[in-house]
C-alpha cells in the first residue's frame, strides 16, 4: 500500500496497522490451538515411549537335579530357587532388608517366569543357565533412564545400593531392553511391569461390537424412514427434534439411563460389554442417523423415479436402489460414530465397567474393562511406572482412532459419487 502516490496519513496508517493486527489475531488463535495439540500429543508420546520397551535382567540359575527334580518339575519351589540364585549373584548381600531389595530388582512373577522358561525348553535342565527375567517397574525406570540416577537419593524410589547392583549387572551384560510384548499380551495387573492392555482391548472390541450390531441397523432404518417415507407431520418433526437433542445430551446422562433402566429395571449383568455396548449404541444412534440422512438426501430423485417408473414398489426402490448408493456415506458416518464410542468413558463408569479386570473377557456377559476406562484407572494409580503405562495406552487408543478415521476418509474418497 505504501507504493501509492499519496503519502499515508496517520489515520490510514492506523487502519492498516489494525488490519495487520486483526489478521495476526486470527493466525495466533489457530497457532495456539494447533500448538496445544502438538504439545499434548507430543508429551504423551514421549512419556508413553518408555512403556513400549521393557527391561530384562539375566540371572544365572543352577538347574541341576539337586535343585529341580527333572521327573517332577512342578514340585520345585521356583520362587525360593530364584531368590537363592539372586543371592548367589550378589554374595555380599547379607541383611534381611537388603535381600528384600535385591529380590525387588525382578518382578514379583519371577518364579512363574523361571517355570515358563523350563517348560518351554526342558533341555536347559541339568546345569547352571543364564536366563532372562522381567525387571521390576522401579528397576526398569532406572535402566531406561526415565528416573535420573544422579538425583539425590531421597528423591527417587531406588536407593544408591540398588542402583549399584544394577550397574554391576549392566557391566556384566546382564541387562537388556527390548520391545514390551507383554504390554499387548497381558491383562491388567497391580504390578506395572506386568500390566498389559489386552483385557481392556478385548473389552472395548466386544463393547463396540454390541454397539455396532444394535445401533447400525436401527439407525439406518430410522434414517430411511425419516428421509424416504415419513409424511411431513408433527410426529416426524418431533422425532427429528428428539434426534438432534439426543446428539447434544451429556454422555453421563446416558450412563444414568443405563444404570437405572438396564441394570436396575431389566437386571442385565453389571460391568459387562453387553450393557456397555447398549448404552454406547443409544449415544451413537443420533450420530449415525444424522450422517445416514445426509447421504440418503444426496442420492438424486432421478434414481427413485426411475425405479418407481419401472414398477418397483417404494420399499423396493429404496432398498434396491437408493440405500445401496447411500451406503458408503452411511458407513463413513458409522465409523465416525464408532470412533466416538471407542473413546467414551463416563457412561461406562456409571454401569460399573471400572472394576479391576485381569482376565481377558471372552463373551459379552462377562465383566470387562474398556480401553478408555483402563486409562482412567491407571491414571489414578500411584506407581510412577503407571504414568508411562497410561501414556502408552493412550497412544494405542489414539492409533485406533486415527486408523478408524483414516478408513472413513478413505471410504468417502473412494466411493464418493457426484450425481
Amino acid at each position, binding site marked *: 500500500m505504501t507504493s501509492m502516490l499519496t503519502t499515508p496519513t496517520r489515520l490510514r496508517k492506523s*487502519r492498516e496497522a489494525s*488490519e495487520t*493486527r486483526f*489478521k495476526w*489475531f*486470527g493466525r495466533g*488463535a*489457530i497457532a*495456539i*490451538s*494447533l500448538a496445544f*495439540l502438538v504439545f*499434548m500429543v507430543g508429551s*504423551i508420546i514421549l512419556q508413553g515411549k518408555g512403556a513400549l520397551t521393557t527391561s530384562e535382567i539375566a540371572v544365572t540359575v543352577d538347574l541341576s537335579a539337586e535343585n529341580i527334580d527333572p521327573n517332577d518339575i512342578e514340585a520345585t519351589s521356583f520362587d525360593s530357587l530364584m531368590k537363592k540364585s539372586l543371592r548367589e549373584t550378589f554374595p555380599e548381600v547379607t541383611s534381611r532388608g537388603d535381600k528384600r531389595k535385591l529380590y525387588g530388582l525382578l518382578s514379583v512373577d519371577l518364579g512363574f517366569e523361571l517355570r515358563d522358561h523350563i517348560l518351554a525348553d526342558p533341555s536347559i535342565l541339568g546345569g547352571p543357565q543364564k536366563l532372562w527375567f522381567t525387571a521390576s517397574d522401579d528397576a526398569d525406570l532406572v535402566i531406561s533412564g526415565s528416573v535420573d540416577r544422579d538425583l539425590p537419593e531421597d528423591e527417587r524410589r531406588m536407593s544408591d545400593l540398588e542402583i549399584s547392583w544394577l550397574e554391576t549387572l549392566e557391566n556384566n551384560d546382564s541387562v537388556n531392553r527390548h520391545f514390551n510384548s507383554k504390554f499387548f499380551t497381558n491383562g491388567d495387573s497391580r504390578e506395572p511391569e506386568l500390566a498389559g492392555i489386552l483385557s481392556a482391548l478385548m473389552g472395548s472390541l466386544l463393547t463396540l461390537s454390541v454397539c455396532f450390531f444394535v445401533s447400525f441397523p*436401527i*439407525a439406518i*432404518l*430410522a434414517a*430411511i*424412514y*425419516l428421509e424416504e417415507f*415419513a409424511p411431513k407431520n408433527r410426529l416426524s418433526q*418431533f*422425532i427429528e427434534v*428428539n*434426534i*438432534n*437433542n*439426543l446428539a*447434544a*445430551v*451429556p*454422555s*453421563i*446422562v*446416558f450412563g*444414568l*439411563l443405563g444404570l*437405572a433402566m438396564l441394570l436396575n*429395571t431389566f437386571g442385565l449383568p453389571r460391568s459387562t460389554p453387553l450393557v456397555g455396548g447398549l448404552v454406547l449404541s443409544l449415544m451413537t*444412534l443420533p450420530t449415525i*442417523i444424522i450422517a445416514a440422512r445426509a447421504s440418503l438426501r444426496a442420492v438424486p430423485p432421478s434414481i427413485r423415479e426411475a425405479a418407481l417408473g419401472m414398477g418397483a*414398489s*417404494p*420399499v423396493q426402490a429404496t432398498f434396491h436402489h437408493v440405500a445401496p448408493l447411500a451406503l458408503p456415506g452411511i458407513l463413513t458416518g458409522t465409523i465416525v460414530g464408532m470412533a*466416538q464410542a*471407542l*473413546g*467414551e*468413558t*463416563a457412561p461406562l*463408569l456409571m454401569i*460399573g465397567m*471400572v472394576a479391576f479386570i485381569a482376565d481377558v473377557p471372552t463373551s459379552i456377559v462377562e465383566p470387562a474393562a474398556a480401553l478408555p476406562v483402563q*486409562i*482412567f484407572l491407571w*491414571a489414578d494409580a500411584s506407581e510412577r511406572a503407571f504414568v508411562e503405562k497410561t501414556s502408552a495406552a*493412550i497412544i494405542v487408543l*489414539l492409533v485406533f*482412532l486415527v486408523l478408524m478415521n483414516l478408513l472413513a476418509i478413505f471410504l468417502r474418497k473412494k466411493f464418493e459419487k457426484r450425481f
Partner: protein
Amino acid sequence: MSPKNAATAAKLNITAGNRSKTVEMLVTGVLIACSLVAILVTVGIVFSLLFESIRFFERVPMSEFLFGTKWSPQTALRADQVAAEGSFGAVPLITGTLLISFIAMCVATPLGLFSAIYLSEYASKRTRNWVKPLLEILAGIPTVVYGFFAALVVAPMLRSTGESVGLNVSSESALAAGLIMGVMIIPLISSLSDDVINAVPQSLRDASLGLGSTDSETIRKVILPAAIPGIAGSLLLAASRAIGETMIVVMAAGLAANLTANPLEAVTTITAQIVALLTGDQEFDSAKTLSAFALGLLLFIVTLILNVISLKIVNKYREQYD
C-alpha cells in the same frame, strides 16, 4: 397352458401381490418402530431420572437441594447418627460447574472465534483444507486423554508457576480443568461459527469493501453484527458441552465441594459428583445414591434448555440469507 394351470397362476399372482403388500406394510412398520427408538430413549432418560429424583426428594426437600450451600453426602453408619443423611445443598456444585465452564468459555471463545474468522475470511482454500481437519482433531481426542493431560501436566505446571510468583494454587485447581476444557471446545465454536460466518451473503462484504473499508473493518462492522445471533447460538452449544463434560473434571478438578469463585482453588462439579456417588459399592436406596439422579436431572434440564435454544438459533441463522 391348460385353464386349470392358468387359474392357479392367476391365484398365485394374487397371493404374491397380497404378500408383497403385506411385506411393504411390515417393512414400513419396522421402519417406524426404529425411528421411534429415538423418542423411546428420550422418554427413558426423562422417566428414569424423574423417578429416582422423586424418590430422592421424598427424603431431602427440593428447596434444600436447590438452595443449600453445604454438600457432604454421607451414608449413615448408625441409624441414630447426627446428620445421618448428610447435607445435599447443590449450590457449591452448581457454582463449581459454572466457574469451570466460564474459564473454559474464556479460553475457547476468542481462540475459536478468531480461528473461524481467519479461516472463513482470510485463509486460502489450501490453508483451510489443511487447518480445518487439524482443528477438528481436537474434538476427536477422547476426553479421558484431556483429563489425564490436565491432571498430570497442566495442574503441576500451574502449581509451580503459582509458587514462583507467590500464589497458592491447589493441585486440583478449577483453572487447570477449565483451561483444558476450553481447548477441547475450540473446534466446536470454530466450526459452527465458521458455518454462520460463511452464510453471511457476499453482497454485504462487497458493499462494505466497495465503500473503502478494510477487510478487518468489514468483518468487525458488517459481518460479525450480521452473524452475531448464530455465533451466540454456537457459544451456547459449547457452554452446554462444557457443563456436561465429565472426564476432565473428574480427573483434574477433584471432589472438594468448595463454594468459591477463586479459580486457583479446588472446586467440584455436578458431573464429577455423579461419578463419585455412583462408582464403587452402593446401596441403591440411600439418599446418597439417589442424589446422583437428582443431579443428573438438573444437568439434563439445563443442557436441554441450552441445546434447544442454541439449535434453534444456529439453524435459523445458518439459512437466513439463502
